[in-house]
């Protein structure tokens, strides 16, 4: 647990970077500090490992004031990753990663073995990469080395300052996913600074939104931040389509999929028309013998064909987008539905077999139910804020 207790940082010229900050960062969670430039988020981060000393207040690490610790010893127990990586140009990848173990007195061979373990952990191939120098790596690889170096001494706390801001969007997304994956295994207390609210919402268990002048605007889960921004500043900062983005946090498994409009290819046109009319569905999903989707049949078109022919011979519209209710969010289901010509998306299981189909009405009901459940969970007493 990291606690900021009334922490203020005022520079000699009078600028206040951080203003009476009170913040608890729970163990084993990713806390993202987000805000525009100059809001004090980086200063806040650097006060944890004493790269910056507070002017007032205390920073506690597991109940102990960091100001009482020996700075070098304190820092060896706190991983630190920065945007520009700060890798040592004169050391190979393995020796960069082995830095802190070597500082703490481990033998060179021992530290290098540990470095190779970490390389594998962050997805770098030790035989080909261990002996390279940082300038021989791509931006994404350098950042991976930076993360491995920070983790080398297995510190309980990891500080990350704009760790993914210098790489291109595709690599950034991959690194964010890897961080989430790593965290699921390592359970570090991570404090990550970013100006990118999308990143904050994607990787954070908790997000602290800072406003200019070094004050906290809101600390909440990403889903709450989107669903219940504390004020206009947070609302503007989080962005205009937060309603849609919030859906990322609701699982599509809650969606009630239509199954009566899913028909095997062997069904006759006459039967299909009857089913379609009874269900009130203008589109029927045709599936093969393996329950994999073949395409959509329009009920209106079926009436012109011979009644005893089967759906196998009918003209089918493309399946369009599919999603997996078990793994995907309501946002993915909505997106797949919007993108489909039939205004319906196909829910499939891991094997690609059809589970059912969506419609706008079904999505609307699922979204409403999920939002109500989330609001109840966040506000159990039922009182207004």
């Amino acid at each position: 647990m990291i606690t900021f207790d009334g922490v203020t940082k005022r520079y000699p010229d009078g600028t206040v970077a951080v203003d009476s900050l009170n913040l608890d960062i729970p163990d084993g969670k990713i806390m993202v500090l987000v805000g525009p430039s100059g809001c004090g988020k980086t200063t806040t981060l650097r006060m944890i490992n004493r790269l910056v000393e507070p002017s007032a207040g205390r920073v506690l690490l597991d109940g102990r004031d960091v100001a009482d610790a020996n700075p070098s010893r304190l820092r060896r127990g706190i991983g630190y990753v920065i945007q520009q990586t700060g890798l040592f140009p004169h050391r190979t990848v393995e020796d960069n990663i082995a830095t802190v173990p070597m500082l703490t007195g481990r033998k060179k061979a021992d530290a290098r073995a540990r470095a190779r373990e970490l390389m594998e952990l962050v997805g770098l191939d030790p035989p080909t990469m261990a002996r390279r120098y940082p300038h021989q790596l791509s931006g994404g690889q350098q950042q991976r080395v930076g993360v491995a170096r920070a983790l080398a001494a297995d510190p309980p706390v990891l500080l990350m300052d704009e760790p993914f801001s210098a790489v291109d969007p595709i690599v950034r997304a991959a690194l964010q996913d890897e961080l989430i994956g790593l965290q699921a295994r390592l359970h570090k207390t991570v404090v990550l600074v970013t100006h990118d609210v999308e990143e904050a919402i994607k990787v954070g268990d908790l997000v602290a939104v800072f406003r200019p002048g070094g004050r906290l605007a809101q600390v909440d889960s990403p889903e709450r931040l989107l669903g219940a921004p504390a004020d206009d500043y947070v609302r503007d900062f989080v962005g205009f389509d937060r309603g849609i983005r919030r859906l990322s946090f609701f699982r599509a498994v809650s969606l009630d999929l239509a199954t009566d409009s899913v028909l095997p290819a062997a069904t006759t046109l006459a039967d299909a028309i009857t089913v379609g009319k009874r269900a009130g569905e203008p589109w029927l999903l045709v599936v093969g013998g393996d329950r994999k989707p073949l395409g959509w049949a329009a009920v209106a078109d079926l009436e012109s064909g011979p009644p005893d022919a089967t759906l196998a011979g009918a003209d089918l519209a493309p399946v369009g987008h599919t999603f997996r209710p078990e793994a995907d969010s309501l946002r993915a289901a909505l997106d797949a539905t919007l993108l489909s010509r039939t205004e319906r998306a196909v829910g499939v299981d891991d094997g690609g077999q059809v589970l059912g189909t969506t419609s706008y009405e079904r999505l609307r009901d699922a979204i409403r139910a999920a939002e109500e459940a989330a609001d109840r969970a966040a506000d159990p007493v039922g009182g207004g804020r």
Partner: protein
Amino acid sequence: MLRIRLAGDADMQWSWIPQNWSIIWPYTLDNLLLGLVPPLIGLVIALPVGIACVARRWLYPPVLSLSSAIYALPSLALFVVLIAYTGLGNLTVIIPLTLFSLCVLIPNVVDGLRSVSEPVRQAATAMGFTQVRRLVQVELPLAVPVVIAGLRVAVVSSISLASLGQLIGVSSLGYFFIDGLQRDFPTEIYVGLALTILLAVLCDVILVVSRALLTPWARGRRIGPSPRLAWPVAGR
């Protein structure tokens, strides 16, 4: 005057070299020593001075002014002044050459240390390096290419300036210039000249090779002599 006389009798007499090997060799060695010792003493002084200048920013401008002023002094004048204190020995040559070396080496040590980027410095601190350890394990190794660039200039200029020492009787390849001129014997001058150049090139090659060995990480990487000069082209 010199040019006219040489033109009349400019032939190189190759046989002179093996016949006089016994004097060529010691003068060459002495010259080499005078070329190497001042830059090395200079380096030993420039390292702490440069480190201090980086740690205390206000120190650097006066140090730089002083060293530029020293660099402007004619070496012969310094020899003459020093004779009164150190006599006609090696020291009278070594002291001025050391001062000249310092003028090149101090700025290079400072630039070398400053070439270490802020993120690298910050990352080192954040990982728990103490100041001394950071200096020894991170900053100085990273300054090596720029420091060696300065060392190359200092060594080459010391080797060439050492011949002036002969004017006050300090043994060096300058002997062959003076003796050749007095005896109107150009072969000696050619030999002295060729050996001076040879020494300079040899030392330079050794320094270049040692830089490559000391900084395998810098291969294929652009290293500027200083941050000011490193990126002359805008918009890389």
